[in-house]
């Protein structure tokens, strides 16, 4: 650009000198008008190719040369006739106005050309963003386009996740550590600043990173999408990068495309991660299901054969059956614990009634209870007590509590199961008259693998029941607590969210 300007000066000054020499040779046969017209042509040419400064310089030169060489008296700047002033002033006015008009028109044309270039760049960016198969590819294409359309040496795009900022793509794909590379900490601070200040659209781009850029040879633009800073665009050049308002606007538009591409990269990465997690989850389910199946199948055979033996009065068979049951419970508890830890145990709270749950628990425990009695106390007032809980998992909680009561209390002592409504909660209480739990151990009983001090090693459970029960209660928005029972014994209090069925669905 600058070089072509110098050439314009050389060429048109030469033309001006040549024209002056030629006209001077034939001064006697040349009218002043001829000289004036010739210089006007030179000025027009100079303005077109060299712009306003060359045009004005040629105008001044022409004015002086006409006056000096081609107006009587020759070879002096003095003007003899007043009418000759009119010629000179007319020349000057015409030349200045023409130069002005020509250069203005030229600037408009250049601006239009640049706009067309910008529109084409943005069009290519949009196409790049939409058509590239991989998000990374489209980002690389966008970095290339930004670099070439802004005519800078390097363009880098950084992404920002939470606290970290990292380089996503560089154009040209250069070596990391090259001079001019932004400090990631600076970038992070920059991103945070732009995130905090909700910067207006034009201010959001083209900010410079002060600590890094004494000469204006780097430009930093925040990449903002969906109201947050998703990264930064970092441009460097060997020379200072000039940013007039129009270019600043253009940079803003480019930055917006880059922000969308960065966001797309992030979303794609997120989707891939979620897909990987789903796959891992699915595999875990498959493993759990097959372990569960493979362990239960032989247990079924052992139990069935032992029961057959027990019916014939074989005492060993009774023991085998009990141990098979114990193993079965242990397998179930371990599977549930691993599912709970992995968050894979689904809970589906629905409208259920307390009586239904108590009835199902009593039925499920019938085998373990044998001749032990459980006093059930249910509030039979209308309407039936209802709650929003997962029936199957709540049944597990009650079964675990009743199982513990049977296991850890003397055979003759009574067990009670009651339910009542307390404000927004259904309160199930499993109470026994056993030894209770010492105050020092009350916090620990809900930990996995806890076993009461002094309990027999073959007490029948692995110490997982309460840990699982409490977790299941919490997953449903309920609680499970221990309370010492007045007069001796233990109270386990399960609270589940109560519900009031409004106008039970009736047949029309």
């Amino acid at each position: 650009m600058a070089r072509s300007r110098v050439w314009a000066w050389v060429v048109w000054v030469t033309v001006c000198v040549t024209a002056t020499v030629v006209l001077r040779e034939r001064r006697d046969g040349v009218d002043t008008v001829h000289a004036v017209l010739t210089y006007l042509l030179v000025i027009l040419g100079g303005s077109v190719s060299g712009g306003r400064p060359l045009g004005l310089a040629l105008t001044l030169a022409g004015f002086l040369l006409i006056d000096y060489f081609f107006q009587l008296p020759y070879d002096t700047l003095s003007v003899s006739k007043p009418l000759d002033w009119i010629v000179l002033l007319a020349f000057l006015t015409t030349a200045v106005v023409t130069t002005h008009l020509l250069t203005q028109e030229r600037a408009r044309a250049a601006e239009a050309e640049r706009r067309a270039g910008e529109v084409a760049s943005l069009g290519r960016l949009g196409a790049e963003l939409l058509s590239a198969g991989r998000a990374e590819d489209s980002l690389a294409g966008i970095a290339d386009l930004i670099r070439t359309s802004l005519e800078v040496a390097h363009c880098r795009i950084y992404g920002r996740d939470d606290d970290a900022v990292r380089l996503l793509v560089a154009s040209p794909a250069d070596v990391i550590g090259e001079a001019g590379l932004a400090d990631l900490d600076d970038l992070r601070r920059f991103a945070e600043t732009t995130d905090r200040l909700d910067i207006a659209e034009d201010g959001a781009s083209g900010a410079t990173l002060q600590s890094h850029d004494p000469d204006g040879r780097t430009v930093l633009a925040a990449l903002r999408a969906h109201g947050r800073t998703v990264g930064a665009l970092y441009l460097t050049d060997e020379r200072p990068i000039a940013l007039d308002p129009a270019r600043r606007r253009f940079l803003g538009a480019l930055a917006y495309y880059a922000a969308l591409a960065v966001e797309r990269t992030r979303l794609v990465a997120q989707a891939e991660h979620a897909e990987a997690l789903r796959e891992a989850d699915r595999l875990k389910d498959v493993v759990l299901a097959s372990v569960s199946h493979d362990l239960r199948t032989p247990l079924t055979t052992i139990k069935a054969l032992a029961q057959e033996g027990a019916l014939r009065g074989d005492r060993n068979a009774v023991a085998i059956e009990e141990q098979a049951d114990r193993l079965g419970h242990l397998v179930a508890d371990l599977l549930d614990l691993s599912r709970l830890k992995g968050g894979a145990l689904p809970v589906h709270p629905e409208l259920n009634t307390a009586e239904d749950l108590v009835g199902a628990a009593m039925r499920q425990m019938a085998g373990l209870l044998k001749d032990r009695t459980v006093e059930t106390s249910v509030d039979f007032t209308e309407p039936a007590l209802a709650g929003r809980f997962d029936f199957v998992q709540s049944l597990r909680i009650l079964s675990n509590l009743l199982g513990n009561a049977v296991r850890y209390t003397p055979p003759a002592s009574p067990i009670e199961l009651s339910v009542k409504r307390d404000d927004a909660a259904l309160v199930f209480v499993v109470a026994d008259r056993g030894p209770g739990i010492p105050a020092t151990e009350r916090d620990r009983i809900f930990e996995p693998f806890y076993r009461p001090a002094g309990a027999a090693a073959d007490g029948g459970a692995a110490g997982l029941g309460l840990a699982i029960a409490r977790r299941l209660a919490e997953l449903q928005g309920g609680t499970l607590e221990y309370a010492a029972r007045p007069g001796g014994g233990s109270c386990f209090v399960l609270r589940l969210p109560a519900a009031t069925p409004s106008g039970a669905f009736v047949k029309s």
Partner: protein
Amino acid sequence: MGAIRVSDDDLTSAAVRARALLIIEDDAPIRRALRNALSDVTDRLLEAPTGREGIDLTATERPDLVILDLGLPDVRGVDVCREIRAWSRVPILVLSARHADAEKVQLLNAGADDYVTKPFNTPEFVARVRALLRRARLPTADDVATVVEAYGLTVDLLHRRVTRGGAAVRLTPIEWDILRTLVTNAGRTLTHQQIFDAVWGDAAGNPQQYLRVHITNLRRKVETNAARPELIVTEPGVGYRAELPA
């Protein structure tokens, strides 16, 4: 059209003895355990180690009951169930080692009659088999009226009357429909959806959860102790089943 009384006396264990039972199960030791457990129920026990052979034996031997294990090497249990149901009403009792309620519901909706989870309790398993066999002997035509007596309760299906010790038990229309559906399917576990469809028909919405409230109210009227139900048994996560005493 004479009323056929089905009461405890007619349903002694000796009365329900099957001509032939089929076990579809790939695990040989379990087949052996089942054979021992069912020796009192039938004289002829057919065994199939694969789903394909099971389907073929059901077609050729016409057993009185099919015990179907899930996790067969060749065909999915639910597909075996559907295929048999396409041409036979033979009772199907499903055995599974998985505690997956969704799977139970799927199988019952596919036409299975009941479901037992491994490891099971042998006496309970045998009781379930007997209940299904007993049900299969009941007259199936809709116009045959029956009176069911159990736990001191009398359910007159023809006259839509329920009495306990001679005193009338008053039920709402929905409670009656639920009770009738369960009792006429005694021994079968019905899913929430199946009961809902039978009682409410094609009602819009998803009010299955209200079924549980109605069941609770019904139990208060027909059970001796509503907190310890005997007649209407909850199958957790699956549905309900009417159990008549053996």
